[in-house]
C-alpha cells in the first residue's frame, strides 16, 4: 500500500524579466495526487495539509505554480542498499545502473548493453511515459539505481519512478523565488547519487540531499546568494564522499567557483575560485578590479581520474561577455580546463582554450578522459569538442597541449598556434556596428548544456553541433550586483535568417578527423548515448528521437516525441530487458509546439534481442 505524506507549499517560481509574463497556472494544484495515493487506507498519510495562504503578489508580475513534496514510506527498490564509492567508480559496468550524468567518471555515456544494436533498435517500443508538469527545457540525464529512476525537471522538480513501469514513488518540487538569476531558461540537467542520498543543485543556488527511498530532505545548503547572480543547473559529480557542484552566473558578473560538499553533512570541504584573487598567480591577467566581476562560471559537469586523484572542471566565459575593454588580459581561468587535487581542490594545472574571450565561448563542453594514440604513443588524454569550434586533445596528467582540429563546418574567429593558443581574426571582434559574420556563433559549436558520448572501441566521440554564425555587437556595460552584465550580444544570426543547421558528428579521438556527420535542418541541442551494441541515440529540436549506426551514422530508427529534445538519453537494463530513456520538451517559443516536458522510456520488444 502506498503511503504518501503530503506537504504543500505555495511558492512563486517563474522568473520574470522587466515586467514579466502573465501565466495562469491555477489549474495545477496540489489537490492532484500521485497514482494510488487517493486509495491509501492510512488516514494519517494525508497529514500536514498545510497549504500556506498565498501571499499578496502583483498579478502582473507573477506566474504562480504550486509546489509540493510527496514523501514515500513504503518499501521500494530491489534492496540493493546504499550506493558505494566502488560502485560509483565502476561507472556503467553494471547495465542495470546509470549512476553519473556522464555515465562514468570519464563522461563516455557509453552503455555496455550489446542488446541495443543496429539490428535490434527497430524493435524499440514505448514502455511507459511520464510528464514533468513543468515548462522550460527538459534537460536532465536520469539516474537509475536499485530499480528506481530519479528524474529531475526544469524548476527543480525531482521524482523517483519505478524504472520498469514509471510508477511514481515520491516527488519533491523545490520552492523557488520569483527573481531567479537565469540567462537561459530554468534548466536542471540531473541529480547525483551517493549512499542513500539523491543530491541536486537548484536554480536558487542551493545544494540539497534527499533520502533516495523516501524523498525526505536530509540537508539543504546555500551554495551562494542567488540574487547576486548565482544559479546551479548541472548535475553534481560525486567523488569519494564529496558532491562537487559548479555555478552559473557568467552573464551576471559573478566571480566563479566550484565547490565540494560532504555528502553526509552538506558541509563544504573546499572551494576553488576560477578567478585568482589579489596576489594569486593569474590575477594579473585581469585589468584593474575587473577580476571581481569577471564571470568564469562552472555550470557543467567535470570528470575524475582516480589514478591521479584529479578532478577536472571547466569554466565559462569572462564577464562582460562581449565587451572585453575593461578586462584587458587573458582573463584566467575563464574558458579553461582546471585540474585540481580531489581532496583539497589545489590547482595542479590549467589549460585555457579561449584567452580574453569576447564571443561567449564557454569552455565547458563534455570532457572525455580517453586514452588515445598520438604520434605513435599511447597517451592518457582528455579530449573535448570545445564551444569555440576546435576539438582539443590534451595530456590529462600534465596538461600538455597535443593537438586540435576544427570539428564545426564553419569557423573563422581564429586559427591556433603550435601551442593551441588562438590567433584571433581581427575582423571577428565585436563591433559597435558589426558587419562581419563570425563562426561559430555564441552557442557554439557544441554547448555545455548537452553532453556528447564516446565509444572507446570505435575511438569515436559523438558530438551534437550547432552551426549558427552571427555578428557580434559591442556596447557599454554597467555593472550592478545581480543585474545582467553582458556588454553586447549576437545579431543577424543565421537562425534569424533560417539558415542555421546542425549535425551529430563522429570524431576520431586519435586524430580529430570527422568520420561521419548526421545532418539536421536545425542545430542539435540534445545529449547523446552510445551502446556497446553499436548504436548512437540523440534527438532534434523538432522532437525526433533518432538512433544511428555508430560506425556509419546511418539512421536506423526514429520516434516522434512531439517536444524538442534537449535531454541526455540513457540506456539501462532491468531484469534482462533493455530500456532507453529520453526526455522531450524544450523552452523554444519559436515554434507552435507547446512547452511541457515528457519522459519517454522505450523497451526492446520481447524476443527481439
Amino acid at each position, binding site marked *: 500500500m502506498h503511503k504518501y505524506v503530503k506537504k504543500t507549499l505555495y511558492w512563486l517560481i517563474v522568473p520574470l524579466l522587466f*515586467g514579466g509574463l502573465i501565466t495562469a497556472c491555477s489549474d495545477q494544484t496540489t489537490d492532484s495526487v500521485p497514482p494510488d495515493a487517493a486509495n491509501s487506507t492510512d488516514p494519517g498519510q494525508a497529514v500536514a495539509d498545510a497549504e500556506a495562504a498565498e501571499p499578496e503578489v502583483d498579478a502582473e508580475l507573477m506566474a504562480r505554480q504550486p509546489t509540493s513534496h510527496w514523501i514515500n514510506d513504503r518499501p521500494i527498490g530491489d534492496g540493493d542498499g546504499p550506493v558505494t564509492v566502488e560502485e560509483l567508480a565502476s561507472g556503467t559496468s553494471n547495465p542495470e545502473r546509470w549512476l553519473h550524468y556522464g555515465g562514468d567518471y570519464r563522461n563516455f555515456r557509453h552503455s555496455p548493453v550489446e542488446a541495443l544494436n543496429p539490428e535490434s533498435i527497430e524493435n524499440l517500443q514505448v514502455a511507459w511515459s511520464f510528464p514533468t508538469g513543468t515548462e522550460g527545457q527538459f534537460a536532465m540525464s536520469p539516474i537509475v539505481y536499485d530499480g528506481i529512476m530519479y528524474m529531475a525537471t526544469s524548476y527543480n522538480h525531482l521524482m523517483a519512478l519505478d524504472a520498469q513501469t514509471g510508477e511514481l514513488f515520491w516527488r519533491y518540487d523545490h520552492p523557488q523565488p520569483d527573481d531567479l538569476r537565469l540567462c537561459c531558461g530554468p534548466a536542471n540537467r540531473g541529480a547525483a547519487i551517493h549512499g542513500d542520498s539523491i543530491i541536486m543543485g537548484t536554480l536558487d543556488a542551493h545544494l540539497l540531499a534527499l533520502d533516495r527511498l523516501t524523498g525526505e530532505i536530509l540537508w539543504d545548503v546555500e551554495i551562494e546568494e542567488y540574487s547576486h547572480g548565482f544559479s546551479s543547473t548541472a548535475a553534481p559529480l560525486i567523488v569519494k564522499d564529496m558532491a562537487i557542484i559548479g555555478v552559473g552566473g557568467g552573464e551576471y558578473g559573478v566571480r566563479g567557483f566550484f565547490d565540494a560538499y560532504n555528502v553526509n553533512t552538506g558541509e563544504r570541504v573546499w572551494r576553488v575560485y576560477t578567478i585568482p584573487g589579489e596576489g594569486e598567480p593569474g590575477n594579473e591577467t585581469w585589468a584593474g578590479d575587473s577580476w571581481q566581476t569577471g564571470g568564469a562560471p562552472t555550470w557543467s559537469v567535470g570528470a575524475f581520474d582516480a589514478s591521479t586523484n584529479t578532478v577536472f572542471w571547466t569554466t565559462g566565459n569572462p564577464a*562582460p561577455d562581449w565587451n572585453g575593454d575593461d578586462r584587458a588580459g587573458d582573463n584566467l581561468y575563464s574558458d579553461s580546463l582546471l585540474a585540481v587535487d580531489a581532496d583539497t581542490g589545489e590547482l595542479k594545472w590549467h589549460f585555457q582554450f579561449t584567452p580574453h574571450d569576447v564571443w561567449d565561448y564557454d569552455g565547458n563542453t563534455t570532457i572525455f578522459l580517453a586514452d588515445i594514440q598520438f604520434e605513435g604513443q599511447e597517451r592518457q588524454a582528455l579530449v573535448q569538442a570545445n564551444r569555440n569550434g576546435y576539438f582539443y586533445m590534451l595530456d590529462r596528467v600534465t596538461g600538455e597541449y597535443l593537438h586540435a582540429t576544427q570539428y564545426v563546418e564553419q569557423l573563422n574567429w581564429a586559427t591556433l598556434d603550435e601551442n593551441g593558443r588562438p590567433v584571433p581574426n581581427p575582423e571577428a571582434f565585436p563591433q559597435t556596428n558589426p558587419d562581419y559574420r563570425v563562426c561559430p556563433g555564441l552557442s557554439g559549436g557544441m554547448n555545455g548544456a548537452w553532453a556528447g558520448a564516446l565509444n572507446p572501441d570505435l575511438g569515436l566521440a559523438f558530438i551534437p553541433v550547432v552551426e549558427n554564425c552571427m555578428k557580434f555587437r559591442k556596447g557599454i556595460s*554597467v555593472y550592478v550586483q545581480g543585474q545582467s552584465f*553582458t556588454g553586447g550580444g549576437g545579431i543577424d544570426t543565421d537562425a534569424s535568417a533560417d539558415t542555421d543547421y546542425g549535425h551529430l558528428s563522429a570524431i576520431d579521438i586519435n586524430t580529430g578527423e570527422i568520420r561521419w556527420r548526421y545532418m539536421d535542418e536545425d542545430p542539435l541541442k540534445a545529449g547523446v548515448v552510445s551502446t556497446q551494441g553499436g548504436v548512437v541515440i540523440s534527438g532534434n529540436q523538432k522532437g525526433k528521437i533518432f538512433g544511428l549506426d555508430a560506425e556509419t551514422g546511418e539512421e536506423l530508427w526514429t520516434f516522434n516525441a512531439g517536444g524538442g529534445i534537449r535531454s541526455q538519453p540513457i540506456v539501462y537494463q532491468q531484469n534482462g530487458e533493455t530500456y532507453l530513456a529520453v526526455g522531450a520538451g524544450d523552452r523554444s517559443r519559436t515554434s507552435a509546439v507547446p512547452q511541457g516536458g515528457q519522459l519517454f522510456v522505450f523497451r526492446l520488444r520481447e524476443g527481439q534481442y
Partner: protein
Amino acid sequence: MRAGLCAGLLMSALVACGENEPPAPSIVETYMADPAAVDRGEALFVGTCAGYCHSFERDNTDALYLFDCEWKHGDGDQDIFNTVIAGIPNTRMVGFGDNFPEGEADLWKIIAFLRTNQESCA
C-alpha cells in the same frame, strides 16, 4: 473692484499667451534631437540591457521587447526612468540606482534611444 478685474484680465491674457507658446522640450526630446546622445543610449542599451533581458526584435524569447507600446510600469519617460533606477521587486530587473557612468544623463539617453526607435502607437 476695477483693479481686481484688470488683474484678472491680465492673468487670463498671460495664460492664453502661454498656451500659444510651444512647451520647452523635455530632456528626452532634447537628447532625441542629438544623434550623439541617441548613439550613447543605444550603446548602453546594447551593452547593458540587450544581452539576454531585452530584445531588438519580437523574437519569442524570454527577452522582453521594449520598442512596442506596452509598458507595464508606466509609459511616461519619468515612469521608465523611475523603473530603471528603482527596479521591479521580485523580478530580475534590479534597479541601476546611480551606477550609470555618466549619471542620470545616461539613462535619459537610453530612453531617448528607445523613443527614437519606438513603434508607432495608435
